[in-house]
C-alpha cells in the first residue's frame, strides 16, 4: 500500500515521463484489477474502472500462459491498433503500468520511457 508522498511522486513521474511525451493514457493498477492512479492528455473518456479490471485479467491470463510453457514471464506485452496501441509493463510484484499511445510515437520510445518510470517507482517503493 502506498502512502501519500509515494502516490504524489508516482503521479509526477508518470506525468513527466509519459504524459508530457505525448502519451494518451496511463493507468497504474494492481493485479487484483484496481486502478491506483490514472492520467490522460486531457481528452480521454476512457472508463478506467472497466479498463483496469480487463487489463488485470488480460495480464494475469498471459502470465499464466507463460508459466505453462516454462517462461517466468513475457517481458513485452503489447497490443497494436489502427490509431493507438497499448503497452503493458510489470512494475512491482503486484502492480502493472499500462500505457496507451498514438501511432505518432514509436514503441521504442514508449518502452524507454516506461522503463524509466518502472525504475523510479521501484526506487520510491524501496526508499
Amino acid at each position, binding site marked *: 500500500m502506498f502512502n501519500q508522498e509515494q502516490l504524489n511522486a508516482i503521479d509526477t513521474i508518470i506525468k513527466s515521463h509519459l504524459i508530457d511525451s505525448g502519451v494518451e493514457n496511463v493507468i497504474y493498477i494492481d*493485479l487484483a484489477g*484496481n486502478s491506483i492512479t490514472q492520467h490522460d492528455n486531457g481528452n480521454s473518456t476512457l472508463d478506467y474502472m472497466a479498463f483496469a479490471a480487463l487489463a488485470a*485479467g488480460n495480464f494475469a491470463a498471459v502470465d499464466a500462459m507463460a508459466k505453462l510453457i516454462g517462461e517466468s514471464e513475457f517481458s513485452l506485452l503489447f497490443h497494436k491498433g489502427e490509431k493507438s496501441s497499448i503497452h503493458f509493463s510489470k512494475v512491482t510484484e503486484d502492480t502493472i503500468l499500462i500505457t496507451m499511445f498514438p501511432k505518432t510515437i514509436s514503441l521504442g520510445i514508449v518502452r524507454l520511457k516506461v522503463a524509466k518510470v518502472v525504475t523510479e517507482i521501484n526506487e520510491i517503493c524501496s526508499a
Partner: protein
Amino acid sequence: MALVNVKTKEVKVKIVYYGPGRGGKTTNLEYINNTYRNQIKSEMVSLKTQDDRTLFFDFLPFDIGRIKGFKVIIQLYTVPGQVKYNATRRLVLKGVDGIVFVADIQKFQRKRNIESLNQLYENLKTHNLDLFELPLVMQYNKVDLANKGEDVIPTKILQQDLNSVLRVPAFEASALGGGNVMKTLKKIISMTLASIQDQLF
C-alpha cells in the same frame, strides 16, 4: 486485500460471486446492474462465450458513499462456472475481500455445489487465503423452481451440505426475479466492510 488510496481517499473492495456453472452468478449481477443502472457510472463488463456462458468474468463497480472520509467503491466479479475454467477462476480470486457462494438448489446440482465449494477452498489456498477467515455469504438460488414443482434440495439439506462447518449467513434467493439479490449483496458488503475497518485509519 482492499485497495486503500490515501491520496484520492478511495477504498476499492472486491467481492466475488462464486459457485457451480449455471447457478445464477451472472444473473445476480445483471439484476443489480438493471435495478441500479442510473446510480452506476461504469458499464458492466461481461466476457462471454458465444453461447452466453461466462468465459472469464463479469465485472460491475459502483460507489456506496463515504466511510471515515473514504469513498467506498464496491467491485463485483463473477467467476466462470464451467469445470474446465478453474485456472481462470483462480485468477479472478486474486485480491478478493468477500465472497458470495451461489448454490443451485436443483436436485441434480447437489454434488456440483459441494465440489465447487471445496474447489473454492483450494483455490483460495493458492492465494494464501483461508475460506474460514474471509467474509462469506451463502445464496441458495432458484427457489422459484420449488413452486413450479421442480425437484429441489431442501434448505435444511443445503445448510448441512455447505454451511454446517462454515456457519455463515445464508439466503434463499431467486436471482432471475431479483428475490433476495439485494439482501445478499447488502450482507456481504457490510461483512466485508467490517473486516477491512482497521485498514482505514
